[in-house]
């Protein structure tokens, strides 16, 4: 990786200084805040920590978070595979526009990603009255949380798969089809094994964002304790009520999820580098 003996520029004279600078930046911005979460979660001892997590509202928030992710992530994964198949295996007009549109949700503020659903389905939204007449609830209920989460995590799987499948081409699939395999068999036996690690990678990132999403979900949730609060919203509610141990205890669960994601992601990058998209190879 880094050059062995070749004379690349390294600035040996100020190397310790640069290294120190990098560590200081990472320490102050990333490592210390992470430690602070766990420190404050256990500030009043183990018992207070577990008591905070055993509260019915906390448990309801954890259940809701898992449920929202369990609906949104598979939908985005199926979409990601379909989009990657269409884009990587075929040549058609308007492809680059399609790619741009798929990436679009990444450049939209999470708050706007929640706002658009309120504009459609909120009390004064386009379909607000119709929904009210039919006694259907989307905003301040589970469907709204799911829609907001799906929009925010929309591109994750697709953008992992598209570059990889473009690299891989379609020779293997063509060979299988020529030998008489059906379309579905070809996908199942050839394509899926070829993309499985990248798919897992995308699902991992998608899931982390889905479970940790705050802004978009905050707009559509209504913050009803025990009902429409996901875990990140539960953190907010407790924090604003000055219940710091509870807030940081819940936050430490989310931070652990982030750490776990990072570990799995790094493991995938190290062990299956060749089977991830080129820009993921370290």
């Amino acid at each position: 990786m880094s050059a062995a003996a070749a004379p690349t520029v390294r600035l040996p004279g100020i190397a310790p200084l640069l290294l120190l600078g990098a560590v200081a930046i990472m320490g102050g911005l990333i490592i210390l805040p992470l430690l602070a979460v766990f420190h404050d979660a256990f500030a009043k001892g183990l018992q207070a920590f577990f008591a905070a997590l055993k509260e019915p509202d906390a448990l309801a928030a954890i259940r809701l978070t898992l449920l929202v992710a369990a609906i949104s992530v598979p939908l985005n994964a199926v979409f990601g595979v379909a989009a990657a198949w269409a884009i990587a295996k075929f040549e058609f007009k308007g492809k680059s526009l399609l790619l741009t549109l798929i990436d679009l949700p990444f450049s939209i503020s999470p708050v706007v990603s929640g706002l658009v659903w309120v504009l459609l389905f909120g009390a004064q939204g386009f379909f607000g009255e119709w929904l009210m007449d039919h006694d259907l609830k989307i905003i301040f209920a589970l469907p709204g949380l799911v829609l907001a989460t799906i929009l925010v995590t929309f591109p994750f799987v697709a953008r992992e798969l598209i570059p990889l499948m473009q690299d891989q081409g379609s020779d293997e699939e063509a060979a299988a089809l020529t030998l008489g395999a059906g379309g579905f068999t070809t996908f199942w036996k050839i394509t899926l094994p070829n993309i499985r690690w990248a798919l897992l990678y995308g699902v991992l990132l998608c899931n982390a964002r889905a479970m940790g999403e705050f802004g978009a979900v905050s707009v559509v949730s209504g913050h009803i304790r025990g009902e429409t609060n996901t875990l990140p919203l539960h953190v907010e509610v407790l924090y604003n009520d000055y219940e710091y141990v509870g807030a940081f205890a819940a936050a430490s669960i989310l931070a652990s999820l982030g750490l776990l994601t990072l570990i799995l992601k790094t493991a995938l990058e190290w062990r299956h580098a060749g089977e991830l998209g080129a820009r993921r190879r370290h």
Partner: protein
Amino acid sequence: MTDLSLNPNAKAGGAPRPRLVRWREPSILPGFGLSLGVTITYLSVIVLIPLIGLAIRPWELGLAGVWRTLTDERVAAALNLSFSLSAYAALLNAVFGLLIAWVLVRYDFPGRRLLDAIVDMPFALPTAVAGIALTALYAPTGPLGALAEKVGLKTAYSPLGIFIALVFIGLPFVVRAVQPVLQDLDREVEEAAQTLGASDWQRIVHVVFPALAPALISGVTLAFARAVGEYGSVVFIAGNMPMKTEIAPLLIVIKLEQYDYAGAAAVGLAMVIISFGALILINTVQLLLARRGRR
């Protein structure tokens, strides 16, 4: 799915005959109609229709009403704060990101891979968690906040606090943009420069930096775009005082709470348009730069 298995021999041999302009190349692979259909339907339902709703809604106020909403003191202050702090944060991240990428690529030290992995933490850590953690550290009662107070700096609950959160959220974009380019940099070019008698600093300024510039710009742009819309990691540390530390996304939330849908949509639409404008502008600059570099 009859149109899916087009004749694979269409290209090979045979006299060229006039044909209708095709919108896609023939392929023996199946599933084009199905996969593209799923893609476009899902994209429309989840992304396009909602965004069209966003684009339509503000205009029920009329052009004058939208203008009044956006030039309202409080809204203008929030938009100004969000965009300018995001730009400053992205610029500082250019320096921080270069430094960290440089250290990760050019030096070997114990813990390098760990440091490398931790760079992605702001991507993986839920924003609300980052928000309360940064606040705990940088509030006057926190260790770093107390330290800053001794030298007369108020960090949390001030624009500086927002700035810190935006630097946090943007850092990985720059590192991850620059790092692969720095890694793949052609060593021979650097060697050639050295053979010709260039000093280390000359080589950095004239060889390494120009090669990194396009990646650096794109990383900084991504960091900027992310910072403009960032909500979770900012609202806790900001203090949210109207006119002073209120960011644009928060204003959307406030307007929604007052059932001012059209006003919220106007602010949202303005944010989307300004950030896209900035993205297009910077992409153009980058394209020109890349073209100049090739000459």
